[in-house]
């Protein structure tokens, strides 16, 4: 199969309009004959489910949580970008497009990235209409702040809970369509496999997590909106239930996986304090608007922060990147922190952190202003650490966060399986090798609200006359029995090690070899180690309880089994890409100053992997830059 991204004709700024003008439509009377499955209820999933239902399709929406409102979009703190230029500071769709493309180190498609910027302004209109209480100025107009990797203020926010407010708006709209009986919500249901008939996605097999019942669901198209997979590292900023199972099952059924190793390490999370830790809490990047990051100049300095005089502090981001300073993009800020920590300047209990200091901001703006801007983040920090950050600096540390990689999709957000779509964080589309702050809520919302509802019709129009298989089709029976067999197999191992124990082992390998910096020998070793973990897992994992009941241990085991396989692909991908770009930093390829050394001659393509009986075959989608000349990505 050849990779056709289906980029529309025309100038960059006309492509989306041209697409909409020429794609197939479905008349309202026919839409109600079509059924769509949406897996996930975050901003992408709930936005898509509600909008598709408003258009007249019948939608079934799944989430593994007890309510759609809990999807992990809820945890995004800082904000959502839009090229409104409300601040009159020189912003435009073009500049936002350029910032995003550059932020991703020129590893995404121009047409997709442009569309992201183009649709950002109407998205803010949409959320305001839905009642999102965005921050306002006294005159009643919307307020903005700045995020990493840009020099304008284009980020809209609702205190430190922007993701929560947006996902609650999406959940509201979803609730409206549930009441209208156009959406059937299946909470506490986890999709365990995709069903293809004659090569097209026609449904899913899901497990009712409350009862353990395995069920078949039939549809005319399946949309995956399952979020990111950085929980492969175990310790990450993600919710403990976040997983890559649905996209991994889709991959094994033939959906190509793009740039799996492009995962973002966030520079400002709370440091790990114990081995038993289950997750790392993110502190919003917005804090870097006013907080200054530093470490002691002296190695292994044992003094308290307040005892270290100003001239003995190293504000290393301001020193290395004077024009962006503390707002350097995430990949760069994380690597710079790692460099200082590795060089012996780390602070905190385990010497694995750096300071984020608000002293100067409080002196300049007053405590009240800082409290108004970040009050809930300071509260959260105090709840978790017991430390009052108004009086002493926060300690922060890099943590696994976002996955830029995901299922390969074309311009229509369709995977390489006809009728199977991937939207939001689970696809690889707009962010390239590194995502800019506040572009995540943007991309996931735009995919769900604006793009998919305008592209899925192009496919579904061809399905109207097609045969509609029932849930008793042999293929449904076959996939269902495969799912049952897998569950049986995992329960029958009944070895000596817990699921979490395996997950900690996997996370450790991935964090050491496939996170902030990577090298050939380490990755080769990691692949061997992960294969051993896989063998050992299937010999020695222990899950108690039954298949036909609520069994949280079984849920974790099924997710981990998929993470282990995905981890092998991530390392394979990182090993194949002999260059550094964005979040993918190969130690062999760096400048004298320790910056990423990109190789456009040999690697100006997206690595797209095909599953091949336990092995992976590489395809290349070459990126053509027609409007922007890729440059060295400098934030100095």
């Amino acid at each position, binding site marked *: 199969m050849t990779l056709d991204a289906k980029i529309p004709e025309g100038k960059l700024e006309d492509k989306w309009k041209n697409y909409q003008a020429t794609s197939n439509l479905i008349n309202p009377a026919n839409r109600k004959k079509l059924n769509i499955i949406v897996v996930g209820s975050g901003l992408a999933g709930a936005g898509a489910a509600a909008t598709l239902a408003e258009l007249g399709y019948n939608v079934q929406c799944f989430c593994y949580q*007890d309510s759609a*409102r809990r999807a992990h979009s809820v945890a995004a703190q800082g904000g959502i970008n839009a090229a409104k230029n409300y601040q009159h500071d020189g912003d435009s769709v073009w500049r936002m497009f350029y910032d995003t493309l550059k932020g991703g180190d020129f590893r995404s498609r121009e047409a997709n990235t442009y569309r992201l910027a183009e649709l950002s302004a109407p998205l803010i209109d949409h959320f305001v*209409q839905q009642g999102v*209480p965005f921050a306002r100025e*006294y005159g009643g107009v919307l307020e903005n702040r700045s995020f990493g990797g840009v020099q304008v203020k284009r980020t809209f926010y609702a205190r430190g*809970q922007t993701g929560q*407010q947006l996902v609650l708006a999406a959940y*509201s*709209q979803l609730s409206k369509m549930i009441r209208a009986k156009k959406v059937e919500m299946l909470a506490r249901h986890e999709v365990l496999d995709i069903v293809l008939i004659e090569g097209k996605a026609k449904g899913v097999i899901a497990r009712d997590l409350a009862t353990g019942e395995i069920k078949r669901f039939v549809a005319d198209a399946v949309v995956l909106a399952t979020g990111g997979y950085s929980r492969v590292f175990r310790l990450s900023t993600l919710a403990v239930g976040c997983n890559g199972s649905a996209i991994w099952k889709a991959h094994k059924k033939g959906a190509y996986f793009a740039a799996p190793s492009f995962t973002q390490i966030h520079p400002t999370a709370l440091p790990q304090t*114990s081995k038993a830790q289950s997750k790392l809490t993110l502190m919003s990047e917005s804090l870097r608007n006013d907080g200054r990051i530093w470490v002691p100049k002296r190695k292994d300095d044992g003094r308290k922060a307040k005892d270290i005089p100003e001239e003995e502090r190293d504000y290393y981001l301001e020193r290395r990147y004077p024009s962006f300073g503390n707002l350097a993009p995430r990949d760069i800020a994380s690597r710079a922190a790692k460099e200082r920590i590795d060089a012996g300047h780390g602070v905190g209990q385990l010497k694995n952190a750096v300071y984020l200091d608000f002293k100067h901001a409080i002196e300049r703006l007053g405590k009240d202003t800082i409290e108004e801007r970040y009050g809930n983040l300071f509260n959260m920090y105090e709840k978790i650490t017991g430390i009052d950050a108004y009086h002493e600096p926060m300690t922060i540390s890099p943590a696994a966060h976002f996955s830029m990689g995901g299922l390969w999709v074309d311009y229509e957000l369709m995977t390489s399986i006809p009728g199977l779509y991937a939207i939001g964080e689970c696809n690889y589309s707009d962010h390239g090798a590194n995502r800019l702050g506040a572009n995540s809520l943007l991309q996931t919302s735009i995919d769900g609200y604006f793009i998919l509802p305008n592209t899925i019709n192009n496919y579904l129009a061809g399905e109207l006359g097609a045969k509609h298989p029932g849930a008793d089709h042999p293929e449904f029976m076959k996939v269902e029995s495969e799912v049952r067999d897998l569950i049986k197999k995992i329960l029958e191992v009944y070895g000596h090690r817990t699921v979490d124990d395996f997950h900690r082992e996997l996370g450790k390998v991935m964090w050491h070899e496939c996170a902030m910096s990577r090298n050939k020998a380490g990755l080769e070793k990691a692949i061997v180690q992960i294969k051993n973990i896989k063998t050992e897992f299937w010999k020695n994992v222990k899950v108690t309880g039954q298949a036909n009941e609520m069994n949280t241990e079984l849920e974790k085991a099924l997710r981990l089994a998929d993470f282990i396989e995905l981890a092998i692909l991530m390392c394979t991908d990182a090993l194949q890409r002999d260059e550094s770009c964005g979040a993918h930093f190969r130690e062999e390829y760096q400048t004298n100053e320790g910056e990423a050394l990109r190789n456009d001659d040999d690697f100006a393509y997206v690595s797209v992997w095909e599953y091949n009986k336990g092995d992976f075959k590489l395809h290349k989608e070459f990126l053509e830059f027609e409007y922007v000349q890729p440059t060295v990505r400098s934030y100095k």
Partner: protein
Amino acid sequence: MNVIFKIWRQEHAAVEGYFKTYEVDGLTEDMSFLEALDHLNETLVLINEKVIAFESDCREGICGQCGVFINGRAHGPHQHITTCQLHMRSFKDGDTIVVEPWRAEAFPIVKDLVVDRSAFDRIIQQGAYITAKTGTAPEAYAIPISKEISERAMDVAACIGCGACVAACKNASAALFTSAKINHLNQLPQGRPEEHSRLLDMVAQMELENFGSCTFTAACEVECPAEISINSIAEMNARYIKAKLFG
């Protein structure tokens, strides 16, 4: 550190539950309360027992999925936090810690510490939205909203839907939850066109779900992780009278 957990075990809604005692060692003060339960569950697996079912997801206090009664208080001994934000340093070595699910008729037990809070979803479905389709929005600046109104809306929109208000209330009332959503939408200009029907439908659903009545004990506001004030209930009641008179 070592503690003694007394934890509610119940196979499913149709059978009786009971407290079971677990002596747990190997904990540290830095562990969160849920990590201590994770730790206990791992030891249970290794001695061939079923794990204790409990819910959590984001583990940073925003998704609202976690929530248990700890020593007689919703989300444990501190005010305004979620269970996942509670740390073992809040307990002493050797403490006995009693852990129960939310108790309310409207929240039936699913298993062990897990309850069914779908009643909240059904209240939201009765009008906690603005009836406007995707793609129909006017320019955002067409609706100026004063900072004061916007902040007040945000104060109540912050609700995480965890159910602690219901669990803490002796009447198992959902008034704080319901009022928070109503006051979020009804004070914004976008929410005005449907203000009365929204309020009346949501309150009616709240009563259908068998939540108790509010008697203003303010137990809810003490526990609410989003620090929503009981004033929100008073405001809902005022709006209710207005809706009945003019709706």
